[in-house]
């Protein structure tokens, strides 16, 4: 009797895991990533002749909790038509019973990787503002993301910023007045646990009905406590605050040498206000947060911090250096003329 080698067995197992796309318009190309609920593949849409990202559930049961969640994610994405949110193309069930949906294939890298190449703080803040735009749009549509973190933001090859992975999104209000079918009624976000990879969405069984999903360090305290009813857009604002902190950390190559900019008090105040433990102390909406970041970028005072008079003067000088120097030159010239020519 001959046994299969481990390598051959692994290959067989992977082949068995591959989605059966028979009867669909898609042709499997390659595996791209693995998520909490399933796997994302690159596929070719044979009808339109374009590359798409195909997200397939692990479980081949179309009416399972995960299947409902994936369907729901696709529905959430479908209602969020925004340049900063990856668009969904199709949703369905494969011949093997697994639920799938296809979305735009984004060629790029996660923000956690991309940011290493962005050394300029203003450039990073501009990226953040674009994330805020997408999240603000989702909030305006009554959708909370609930899992905002660097790994869930993609930056495309042409600089496009896309907020991904809306699998944990919560719909605050349905346009069709259908009751919100939230699979996380009893879901609680896990707090940071030892041994968990940083930035990884945590899953923890809490009750027979729900699971805990979340990313330590990026989820709000109320989310971590499981106050599902209390969750509103300020919960995403907490995550955005944590994301802003992440973006304000200097690149690894510059740590220590030019880390001065990250200690800017105004920027720290914005981060602290956005990621305050008490939801009432945070920005009340994303627009307020992005407006403060924009003001910071423009060299203007931010609402998160009352600055002392000396800093106000210094800021005024920085913003109007040339006219101040010109007026000073004029006054100096006048004084010199007065002193040396009209005695």
């Amino acid at each position: 009797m001959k046994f299969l080698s481990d390598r051959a067995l692994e290959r067989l197992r992977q082949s068995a895991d591959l989605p059966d796309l028979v009867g669909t318009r898609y042709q499997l190309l390659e595996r791209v990533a693995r998520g909490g609920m399933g796997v994302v593949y690159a596929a070719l849409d044979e009808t339109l002749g374009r590359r798409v990202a195909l997200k397939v559930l692990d479980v081949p049961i179309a009416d399972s909790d995960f299947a409902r969640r994936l369907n729901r994610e696709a529905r959430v994405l479908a209602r969020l038509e925004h340049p900063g949110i990856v668009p969904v193309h199709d949703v369905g069930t494969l011949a093997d019973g697994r639920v799938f949906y296809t979305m735009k294939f984004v060629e790029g890298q996660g923000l956690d990787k991309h940011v290493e190449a962005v050394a300029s703080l203003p450039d990073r803040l501009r990226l953040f503002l674009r994330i805020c735009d997408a999240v603000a749009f989702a909030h305006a549509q009554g959708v909370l993301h609930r899992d905002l973190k660097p790994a869930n933001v993609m930056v495309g090859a042409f600089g496009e910023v896309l907020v991904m992975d809306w699998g944990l999104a919560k719909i605050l209000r349905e346009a069709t007045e259908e009751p919100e079918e939230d699979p996380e009624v009893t879901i609680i976000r896990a707090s940071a646990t030892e041994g968990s990879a940083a930035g990884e969405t945590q899953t923890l069984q809490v009750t027979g009905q729900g699971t805990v999903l979340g990313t330590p360090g990026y989820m709000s305290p109320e989310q971590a406590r499981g106050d599902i009813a209390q969750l509103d857009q300020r919960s995403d604002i907490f995550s955005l605050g944590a994301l802003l902190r992440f973006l304000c950390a200097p690149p690894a190559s510059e740590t220590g040498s030019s880390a001065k900019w990250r200690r800017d008090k105004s920027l720290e105040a914005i981060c602290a206000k956005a990621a305050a433990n008490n939801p009432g102390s945070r920005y009340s909406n994303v627009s307020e947060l992005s407006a403060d970041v924009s003001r910071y970028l423009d060299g203007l005072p931010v609402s998160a911090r009352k600055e002392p008079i000396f800093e106000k003067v210094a800021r005024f000088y920085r913003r109007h250096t040339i006219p101040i120097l010109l007026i000073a030159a004029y006054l100096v010239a006048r004084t010199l003329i007065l002193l040396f020519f009209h005695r």
Partner: protein
Amino acid sequence: MNKVLLGLLLGAVLGAIDGLSAWFTPAVRAQLVGIVVGSTIKGLIAGVAIGFFARKVNSLALGILFGLAVGFVLAFIVARMQHGYYFEIILPGSIVGIIVGYATQRYGSAHAVPATTR
């Protein structure tokens, strides 16, 4: 504020202040009113010229350079008419030209283009 209007106002105000500074020169204090009026008119002319230039050429460096040139030339003409005080008139006049040139480029808004219909 559009660039020409900004140049006009700034030129007039700075010109008037420039003229008022003659008060510190006792020899010409008696002619202060004439100096202020003349200096204001000089500032107005410089401001309008610099404002029009700023509307045509969108460059901070060229704006400053043009301001300096206009301020210098006008101040030189005034000094020639005064038969003296070249340095006292030309130096501040040129700096005023630079200030107006900078301000029109930096703070003046572009001329609004009316919407067209097809």
